[in-house]
């Protein structure tokens, strides 16, 4: 290794800057939504908008500070930077979640959750779809009946639940 002067300033960190800008947008939305709230003059001093304004200004301030930090090289831990996101794996998990929200109304919780289970296990590298479907089905039914009976939570019944006479 040659003895070189380390760069005076680490490079601008784009991912972190994106987060900062995103946060600034959130702050802007909070500010805008607060500004359009109708406030009765009765509550003009300590009405429902004081805290939202504080939150918006706080978020904006932190967003600016984060953007400055990104400008100075960012803060993401090396441990995270070195590991590239595995989009295939994440994609399968996301697909499972999407399938779940789309199927839960028409086909019921158990069916949707079994699909979710199979897709997520696939994303995590398991290559036994039928085996996983069986586990997913049993687990979903256990969760369905467990929550429905023990916690009194009403989860929409669907095809499979009706077949079982639930």
């Amino acid at each position, binding site marked *: 290794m040659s003895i070189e002067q380390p760069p005076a300033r680490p490079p601008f960190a784009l991912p972190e800057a994106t987060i900062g800008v995103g946060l600034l947008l959130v702050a802007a939305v909070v500010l805008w939504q607060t500004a359009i709230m109708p406030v009765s003059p009765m509550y003009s001093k*300590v009405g429902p908008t004081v805290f939202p304004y504080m939150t918006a200004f706080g978020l904006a301030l932190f967003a600016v500070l984060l953007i400055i930090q990104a400008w100075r090289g960012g803060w993401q831990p090396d441990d*995270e930077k070195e590991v590239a996101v595995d*989009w295939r*794996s994440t994609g*399968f998990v996301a697909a499972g979640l999407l399938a779940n929200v789309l199927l839960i109304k028409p086909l019921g919780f158990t069916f949707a*959750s079994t699909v979710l289970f199979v897709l997520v296990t696939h994303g995590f590298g398991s290559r036994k779809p039928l085996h996983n479907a069986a586990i997913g089905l049993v687990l979903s039914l256990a*969760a369905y009946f467990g*929550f429905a009976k023990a916690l009194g939570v009403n989860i929409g019944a669907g095809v499979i639940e009706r077949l079982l006479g639930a």
Partner: protein
Amino acid sequence: MDTLSQLANGFAIAFTPMNLLWCLLGTTLGTAIGVLPGLGPALTIALLLPITFQVPAEASFILFAGIYYGAMYGGSTTSILLNTPGESATIVTALEGNKMARNGRAGAALATSAIGSFVAGTIGTAGIAFLAPVVVGLALAFGPAEYFSLMVLAFVMVSAVLGSSSVRGLTSLFIGFFIGMVGIDLQTGQARFTFGLPELLDGIDVIIAAVGLFAVGETLYVAARRYTGRDEIIPLKGSLYMSAQEWGRSWKAWFRGALIGFPIGAMPAGGAEIPTFLSYAVEKKLSKHKEEFGTTGAIEGVAGPEAANNASAAGVLVPMLTLGLPTSATAAIMLSAFQSYGINPGPLLLTTQSSLVWGLIASLFIANVILVILNLPLIGLWVRLLRIPAPQLYAGILVFATVGTYGISQSPVDLVLLYVLGAMGFLMRRFDFPTAPVIIGMILGPLAEQQFRRAMTISAGDWSVFYTHPLSLTLLLLALLALLAPKIYSFIQHRRTRGPEHVPGDA
């Protein structure tokens, strides 16, 4: 009435067969989720919140408290055998405990951590019983302005002081404030941040936030890191019982750990990291076996931090029960369980709900006894849980996440919200934002707003209430000091050591 007779009443409540069963269920479940990576007490209690509509308050709090304590015991097992600390509080346990396990002393490490947790948990619980009435006495002098300032102090401590960056911690906290404000403002009936969606009028349920951040976010995070295999589980061999020498080295560490952990946990700052690291440093300094630290594993380095962790977990319940001030995500979710019973934790809780509070404290003593039994003779059972393969474990977590969320109102909007929060949790993990302040902010933010508006209403809109009341001023100054002192200190240090240029890699 004096503490001991109250506590006796508490034991009478906790010893009813039904409540003992709840305690057994909670501790068992808590140990299991503590052992399993990817699941924690905050997530589990959030998923079980609907139980508050089914059973009396005593039963659900005994269950939740059992989960809370149980997760601490279970978490240390995973740290020792797997070297993947499930939560920041068990990082230190993994440090020495895993080294001991690699050198064939897993049994002794597990034993000192379980018995130390028992000793410290019992001391901590006794601490709650005796400190809570004292804090209530002080808190009765608090007006809305003081409460607000105390919350500001807690906010600063929880988000800015503990953790790696104050800006990112505060960002998390303020996002929590925003989430907490969604819905109808209770004082004026004004809808806030609902974006025209009727589903949002009731606000964002804490279940959705906790499950989104801790279950969906965590699963996405693990998936993105290409989680192909499992870490090596160190087989449990050798005696589970400690030698006389190991007892001798452990017991003082337990007591020191408990004495460090409880007061720090009980302060309106919370957090188990500082007491565990502090205890580790103390043990390392006092140990006669310094050469074992970081090499073969020193038993004091497991005993002290584990005790500190459990005692601080007990300490966190003091501000939660007496001031309604949660300083951890789990405590914040327990606070929302109180709200779901229409109970507001605060100085009056001990008198208006004395059977609930004392029954809960008594059941914590019982939980500790059950837990030391569950975690020593039955340890083999929990080790088997570690063998659940990651694909099925994380898929299963998502199935339960769906049940818990969809069960709230059978609305797909809730699921979409869950995924949005999950994506946010994923980014937060990738970019090192702490997630607990989001939950604390969303639960405690609205309460702070309420106190703020109450104080301003009493003072007819005069801001000076916050700095003319001496107590309120002191609390705000403490918060300011906590926020700025580390920065000023590092600035001075930086100026002083500006000599040699920065060497790459010295971090």
